């Protein structure tokens, strides 16, 4: 690990004062991604600002009837928060599908958004990677690309965004509040993460030196019809190959509003509003779900070892829509077990 200096910030002002273009500064929250990447010599900040003592630890109801999740609230405390459990169970379930209990006790909401890809070549400094060193080339496109993207890829990078939490936040249309030396901004979730294009080293639209202060959830939580399915190489403690977050608003048998977001398939949580608009007003039945899944994978392209993801995603989309439609009673969300509510 490289040598660095370390300071603790006690306030937002403290933090922003530390931001200085001459230094490679990083904020450290839970540290679970940053320290891992520093150990792999992928990140090498010269200065770390410990932001854990800033007052961003609250979960509060907002004036618009939504919920504001402080950037420094731990993932576990967010998932088990009573309002998240009752009003945004999709989010609780997605968070609990991620990492391990230990890591969820460390990981923060802000850090989760900014975690970097798990592409093996990105981690391996002996292989070329455009995300790590712009212009070096991409080892995954013609390499072992089992965990890589099938949608929104570019000739420069086919990495995925690895978060589970973010897939649910995309479906819920959360907004990200940030503050920098130029003031505060609110970024709609769909605009927070970006596609790789020819600048894959940039993961998000957060500007250097900007601090995430909170995640704002709108009032609509799809708490009666939702599902998060995560498919992976083992049942727990593994990143998603494909994941699906679904929220449905139903009236009788008809869909008033559908939300579908996919994880493990692109450089950002993947939503497709054409598909959601197609479903709106339709009967919530398998044939419509199957058409939706086909539509959502229309432009999907595999890179050999990840070809299986296309069929897997289609089936997972249909399954998640069926599960969300059929969800009868609120499930107890102590922890994620696949299709737990059907397993009595």
């Amino acid at each position, binding site marked *: *690990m490289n*040598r*660095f*200096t*370390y*300071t*603790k910030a006690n306030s937002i002002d403290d933090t922003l*004062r*530390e931001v*200085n273009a*001459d*230094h490679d500064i990083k904020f*450290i929250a*839970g*540290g*679970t991604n940053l*320290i*891992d990447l*520093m*150990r792999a010599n992928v990140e090498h900040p*010269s*200065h*770390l600002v*410990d932001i*854990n003592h800033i007052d961003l630890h609250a979960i509060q109801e907002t004036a618009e009837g939504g919920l504001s999740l402080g950037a420094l609230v731990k993932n*576990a405390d967010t998932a*088990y928060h009573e309002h998240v459990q009752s009003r945004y169970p999709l989010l609780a379930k997605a968070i609990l599908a991620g*990492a*391990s*209990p*230990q*890591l969820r*006790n*460390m990981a923060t909401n802000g850090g989760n958004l900014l975690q970097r890809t798990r592409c093996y070549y990105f981690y391996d400094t002996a292989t070329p990677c455009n995300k790590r060193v712009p212009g070096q080339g991409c080892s995954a496109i013609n390499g072992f690309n089992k965990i890589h993207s099938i949608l929104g890829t570019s000739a420069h990078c086919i990495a995925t965004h690895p978060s589970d939490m973010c897939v649910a936040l995309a479906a819920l249309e959360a907004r990200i509040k940030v503050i920098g030396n130029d003031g505060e901004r609110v970024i709609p979730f769909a605009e927070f993460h970006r596609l790789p294009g020819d600048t894959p080293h940039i993961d998000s639209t957060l500007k250097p030196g900007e601090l995430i202060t909170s995640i704002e959830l709108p009032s609509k939580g799809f708490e009666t019809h939702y599902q998060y399915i995560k498919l992976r190489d083992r*049942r*727990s*403690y593994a990143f998603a190959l494909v994941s699906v977050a679904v929220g449905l608003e139903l009236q009788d048998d008809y869909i008033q509003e559908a939300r579908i977001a996919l994880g493990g398939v692109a450089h950002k949580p993947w939503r497709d509003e054409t598909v959601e608009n197609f479903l709106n007003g339709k009967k919530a039945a398998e044939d419509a779900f199957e058409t939706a899944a086909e539509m959502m994978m229309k432009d999907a392209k595999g890179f050999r070892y990840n070809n299986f993801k296309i069929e897997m995603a289609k089936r997972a989309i249909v399954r998640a829509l069926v599960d969300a439609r059929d969800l009868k009673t609120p499930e*107890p969300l*102590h*922890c*994620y*077990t696949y299709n*737990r509510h059907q*397993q009595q």
Partner: protein
Amino acid sequence: MKDIMNKEVDDRKEDAIVTEKQLLPVQLNVNGKQYILHLEPWTSLLDALREHLGLTGTKKGCDHGQCGACTILIDGKRINSCLTFAVMYQGVPITTIEGLAQGDKLHPLQQAFIKHDAFQCGYCTPGQICSAQGMLNEGHAYSRDDIHELMSGNLCRCAAYNNIVKAIEEVIETGQTPDAV
């Protein structure tokens, strides 16, 4: 310490040199004892416990958050001590495997692990036991399925999983759930 912590941004370049030589003082509260250490900021909490305090019960398996051998309790909640820096834990109550037994009296989880033969080589065991205590403190395990999922952050290369689950179940069932530590 104040000096290091409150440096002005402007002389950061100098700081880099100063801090490389200068260690940061940190007070760690481990198993009820206070220790004052002078550490490089990049010392992981795991290395501080093992190398600086000689508390070698906590193990290093992967150093990447992928195995759980380094699990300890912070304010009763479990974390991976390998993925965090010691300087971030000023004054926070830390419990390691060494802090679970009461003198010669083993902790109920330790007793149950022995009874159920819940280990072979034992390398993962301190992490498993701390994790199990953390799980009990956190209060979300209601069934065997829950235990499977909520203990998934601890790998066992010897695959003693079945007996680990039995040991934990026994502690829960016989109501000897230890007080939060």
